[in-house]
């Protein structure tokens, strides 16, 4: 039995971590690792960077092709895709968010890891609200937290 099947928390060893070069460019990281019959991410990708052997296979992101546009983040029914991008100072993470209140651009929020623990604060850099009410929130965190932070909590 895999650890995540017991805890619900996906470990980094289960993921295909992008290289430093790819993280600098900005790419989508899929945390969908089980064989479930689902493929909207493949259909939505404008550059055909996401592939699947069959509809039951987990998606594979071609980090060379991926442009980090986040369309897959918005469409994924499991809210399991994130866009990560490292800059010179901090790192940007785009998170699918379905709670209220929706933070505003520039707001400081709590940065949470995969277990909901507060690991630091983050600054909201971009908020996109989709037609179906899923929000894409891009936050800036410290560089070393780029594969750690996966959720936010509004402080006010």
């Amino acid at each position, binding site marked *: 039995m895999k650890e995540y*099947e017991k805890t619900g928390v996906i470990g980094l060893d289960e993921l295909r971590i992008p290289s430093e070069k790819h993280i600098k460019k900005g790419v989508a990281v899929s945390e969908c690792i089980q064989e479930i019959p689902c493929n909207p991410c493949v259909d939505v990708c404008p550059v055909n960077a996401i592939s699947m052997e069959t509809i*039951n296979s987990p998606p594979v992101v071609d980090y060379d092709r991926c442009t980090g546009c986040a369309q897959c983040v918005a469409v994924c*029914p*499991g809210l*399991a895709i994130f866009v990560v991008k490292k800059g010179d100072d901090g790192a940007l993470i785009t998170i699918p968010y379905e709670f209220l209140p929706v933070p505003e651009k520039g707001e400081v929020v709590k940065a949470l890891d995969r277990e909901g623990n507060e690991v630091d604060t983050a600054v909201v850099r971009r908020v996109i609200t989709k037609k*179906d*009410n899923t929000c894409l929130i891009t936050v800036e965190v410290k560089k070393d937290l780029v594969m750690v932070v996966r959720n936010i909590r509004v402080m006010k």
Partner: protein
Amino acid sequence: MRIDRHPILHFEKKKEIYFRYNGQKIKAFEGETIASALHAADIKILSHSIKYHRPRGFFCGIGKCSSCLMRVNGVPNVRSCITPVESGMTVESDRQQLPSIDFPDGRKEDIKTDILIAGAGPAGISAAIEAGKQGKSVLLVDENPSMGGQLIKQTHKFFGSRKERAGTRGIKIAEELEDEAKKLSDVKILLETSVLGYYGNNKGHMLGAANKMKNVLYRITAKKVIFACGAQEDMISFPGNDLPGVYGAGGVQTLMNVYGIKPGNKVLMVGAGNVGIIVSYQLLQAGVDVDRVVEALPKIGGYSVHAAKLRRNGVPIYTSHSIKEVYGDGKVEGAIIARLDDKWNFVEGSEEDVKCDTVCLAVGLTPSARLLFQAGVKRDYVPEAGGHVAIHNGEMETSVGGIYVAGDSSGIEEASTAMLEGRIAGLSASMSLNHTKNGKEESVMKEYIRTLDEMRKGPFGIKAREAKRKILQEALNEGI
């Protein structure tokens, strides 16, 4: 207890109305059910058990469990969870008794139709659309006040492929299906009407149905019948499991996502299958605190992506843990949970007291198939299908010619497979009414069956595959 703002749903302000509950004036909003209006007014005891007079509350929220029976406008045993509240209504608890056999001011109506469909959930509506498109007269009957079955509370996005509306929320799929069915002139819809029984085949299948509050009795004669009656939530045994505040997870989903009412302030969720973890996440979205999820199995049964959503919001999942008892004076005040060893016994000393006002049970579903059994179809116990089910062939026909089944009542699965089974049942019932064979319909049927097989592939489809393999094998043995 009402949800003011919700990240996904918009609850329109409806007209304020008043009704009487045991003489007390209660505020409600038009369109909600009696039980939800009472819950919003913090009245959680709806009746008492007949023999020991134990308090009874809401449980399933969809008219299946009979835990919410009340006397309404003098009519006994009304399921308050599916009966819309009306201005000036008189609602009484604790007056359980058999109704009179008189039928005063009652209206009787005869309906003849090509195809009767019992149940307007994803399977039933899909069957109606398919049959309606073939030009067959369809009567679609459901006992709930609205169409869509359980889709109307599914705020999460569906999995699957684009063709099966993947990436779309269940609530949106319900709207789309309803619109599509209503556009078909041959599809007639009867809501708040229960199919009561099957009365044999004499120049057509004869069934009875009734609208209890409107006092209408229908005699329906149909050439073909499709039962798409869904499923009901399971209960597990532990002391205190009948206390008001112990609710089915699906019942809670109805209360909060359809009627905008919180079930309580703090919830203990029992069961980490997809239903348990999805409803836990939706409770958080509704502003309700979820203390934890306990799961008796050593591993989480639902998709890891759903579990991950819950975990990153700080809700722990305790595998190999279960509920030992619920305590409280007339309502839930807390629960004792404990660890299970590998022989399913509670580990002494591992007990923990969880303070909560709501316990949600997400411990499985049982197919609603009683009407099918009453009609005399060949049945079998198939554990992978969730219990006793009707044996049916690949085109969803049962051992009684002209009677079909689709969706959860043919074996517990997903809404996406229910929609396909509904399409297959609707098409196959229609094709059997046609005098000439049409190659196009046969190729459509093949494509539906192929897609259905595809959706059951993969490790999460194993139970459904096994259930359907057994059912189809037996159908073959029986020559169905």
